[in-house]
Structure formats: C-alpha cells, structure tokens
C-alpha cells in the first residue's frame, strides 16, 4: 500500500510558469486545473502527482486579471484552461488549442462565476 500525501502551496502569477516547469522537471504529471469562485476573486488549483504524492499550486486572481497558460509546459492543459475560461470567464492567454469560448457550450455565459455575474443565480438549472 502506498501512502498518499496532499500538499498545497500558494503561488504568485509571475511565479506560476517557473513552478510548473520545476514540477515537470521533477517528473510530476498534470492531474487537473480547477477553479473556485471565492467571492470577488478566484482560486485556481493546479494539481500534479508523482507516485501518489499530490501537489497543488494555488493561484488567486482578481475578476479582471488574466492568467498565463501552462500548455507550453503541459500540452494537455488546454482542456482544463478552456474549461476555466468557459465556466468562470477567466481569460487565459497563450493556450496551445484555444477554443475561444466554444469548448463548453452553455446557455448562460460563465455559469459558475458568481463574481462575474454580479452575485446572481450561479446556474439556471441549479
């Protein structure tokens, strides 16, 4: 049996790419990128794993801030970055395959972003 460890480290926007490159060099794989609306700002978790050691880089961004894509380091990141853009409205610059808002088709624009939608109902079906 392998013991699973989870750690989370806050990262600044300007340090994100360097930290991601360091994890890639250390042999970590990208597990997921996920966003959480924390009311007035967003937390983006970049999750990595190597041998069941789970590492998170946590980036906090304001509603008008852009995020740099990590798809130049992890090619498969485009699915998560397009998702973050389409569900939360966060601009991600430099994605290797940029669907420009058509990756996830929703009736409501940015349905998961309470902040961007001014605090109204987050999802018409919820």
């Amino acid at each position: 049996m392998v013991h699973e460890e989870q750690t989370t480290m806050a990262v600044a926007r300007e340090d994100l790419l360097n930290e991601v490159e360091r994890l890639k060099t250390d042999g970590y794989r990208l597990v997921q990128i996920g966003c959480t609306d924390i009311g007035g700002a967003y937390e983006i978790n970049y999750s990595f794993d190597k041998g069941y050691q789970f590492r998170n880089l946590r980036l906090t961004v304001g509603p008008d801030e852009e995020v740099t894509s990590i798809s130049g380091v992890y090619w498969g990141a485009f699915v998560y970055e397009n998702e973050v853009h389409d569900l939360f409205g966060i601009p991600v610059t430099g994605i290797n395959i940029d669907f420009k808002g058509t990756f996830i088709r929703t009736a409501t624009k940015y349905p998961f972003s309470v902040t961007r939608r001014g605090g109204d109902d987050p999802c018409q079906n919820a």
Partner: protein
Amino acid sequence: MSKRIVVPFGPQHPVLPEPIHLDLVLEDELVVDVVPSIGYIHRGLEQLVLKREFTEYVYVAERICGICSFMHALCYSQGIEHIMNIEVPDRAKYLRTIWSECSRLHSHLLWLGLFADGMGFENLFMRSWQLRESVLDVLEDTTGGRVIQGTCKVGGVRRDIGQEKLDEMHRTLDTFEENCRDLGDVFLNDGSVKYRLQGLSVIPRDDAYALGAAGPTARASGVAMDHRETGYAAYGDLGFKPVVETAGDCYARCAVRVRELYSSIDIIRRAIEGMPEGPIDVKVKGTPDGEYFSRVEQPRGEVVHYLRGNGTKHLARARIRTPTLANIPILVKMLPGIQLADVPVVVLSIDPCISCTER
C-alpha cells in the same frame, strides 16, 4: 501532398452515441490532424452542490455517470469522510469494494462489447454483453439498482449483503471467471482481432505520462499507476497490483481491460472470503469544514472530486475531474497517422464516457 479535407466525426456517430465531435483533417484517407469539441450537453452538476445538502449530494454525484455511478458516490463520500474525520466501519469498506469491482466488471464488459462492435465482430459484442448482464443481475440483487445503486452514503453504506447471498456470489464466481477467460481468449488470441489492433495508434510510456493519461489508457503504455494502490476502501487489506502492458497500442489497451476482469473477480472473491462482521455505517454529525482532493480508480481511470466545505450544510465547491476529460489530450495525439477507417476503433480504445465528461 494531397489536398487536405476536413471530415466531421460526431457529435452523433454509430460507434459512439454520446456527443463528442472531432474535426478530422485528412490527406487522402490519412488523418494528419484533429480538433476535438465537447460541451454539447454540459449539465452543470458541480454547481448543484450549492443547492443540495452535503449528504444529499451523493445522489447527484452518483448520477454523473450511468456506468461508474457507484464509484462517483464512493469518491464523493470518501472525500467528505476525510474532511469530517469519519471512520467508516470495515464491513462497509468491504461492501464498497465489492460493488466497485462489480462496476468495473460491467463497465469493462460493456466496453469490450462496444469495441468488438466497432471492429465489426458482432457475435463477440453479443457474448460480452451477455456476460455483463450477469453482473448487472448481481448488482440488482444486492442493491436494488442495475444502473444507479444508491447504496453508498457518507459514513458507510445503506445496504448489507447477507451471508447466504455472499456464499451464492462466491459459488458463481468460478463459472463467471471461466466465461470471462473464454471471452478474453478471443480478444487476446483471435487472429483477426490481433491483426486489427496490434501496432495501431502506439503511444509510448513517456508520452502517455506527459499527456496526463489516466487508467487503462495509461497502463497500456507501461505507466504503472492505479489509485487502488493507495489502499482506500478495503484495497489496503486485500492487496493490489496494477495490470500493466507495455506495447501502448490498441491491442494493449484491450489487453489491460481483459486482464482487469480477472483481477476484479479475484478481488471480489477475496473480499467475500475476508468479509468482517459488524455495522455498515456510522452516524454523521456536524458539517464539513475544510477541503480535500478525493481520488478513486474508476474503470476509465483516476477520478478526482475536489470538495470544499465552509462549515455549513452546503459545500462551497465540488469540482470533478473525470478520467475521460484527462484522456482527451492523448486521444488528440493518437489519431494523426492512422487511416480514417481506424478512427472509430482508436476513439473507442480510450473508453470515452461523455456523460462523465459533461458532468
């Protein structure tokens, strides 16, 4: 160079009724590039967590997928239990393991049937689904549900399996394994199957790892990664070794799933033999306050439920990363270089579940 044309694959296609769209860029009949599109039926189930109590959300989690439904409920429940420091009784862990492996069995048999159908091997398709029915019968008999079981909950499970039923399941496992091995023998040794699959869409180990592939898709390329190794539920007691192949082609992806049938049968057999006595659940008190990335090995690979509680009865966030979403990048890399006629088989080789992807 021939003139390039774009051929659409999906969102409705005979081998894959679920909606995923691929723009295939062809030179003659050779695929040279591909652009995937999803998001046709995104359901926003993650957002429902804001409107359902954390104990009720298990029902929503279970409905993310109609194949690995039990495992979504398990992953969610284990995440909440971790945040709230709930120790689940051993018997519940063993029952969870049995139902998880039944889910894996019927999922792999479903896939083997679809894969055979994609190759044009119709009676192999029928034989696979015939065997799958017997697993669904067991699920219905022990949980009341063939598709949605509704037995997993925060703090344990809702139903027990009596000793008489466990003995009956144990007796039928030998015949079931014999039938699975007969079926697996065709998939692994039939000349036409090997001719169709061997050497097709080879993904080397390093590429599979770098692209973040999950489950049998990664293990077929030699990535020895299976979250059951961490010992959640009863896997820690029962012991577990991942099934790994190294060729990285469609045949290897098929072989991993065939061998995982035998592995699942073995786990169920040992879980029945070692089933501890005792309660099947504990009372849940309080509300979750904290966060956790819960991970479980589904039939298609590692699923992640990120759960964040704020001390109220509603979670602040549930973010679910399903294995098919993780396998889309590797699918994009699998298709260039193959013939158009092989596209359906190669797409099926990652066992795509769009229901999960459009959670």
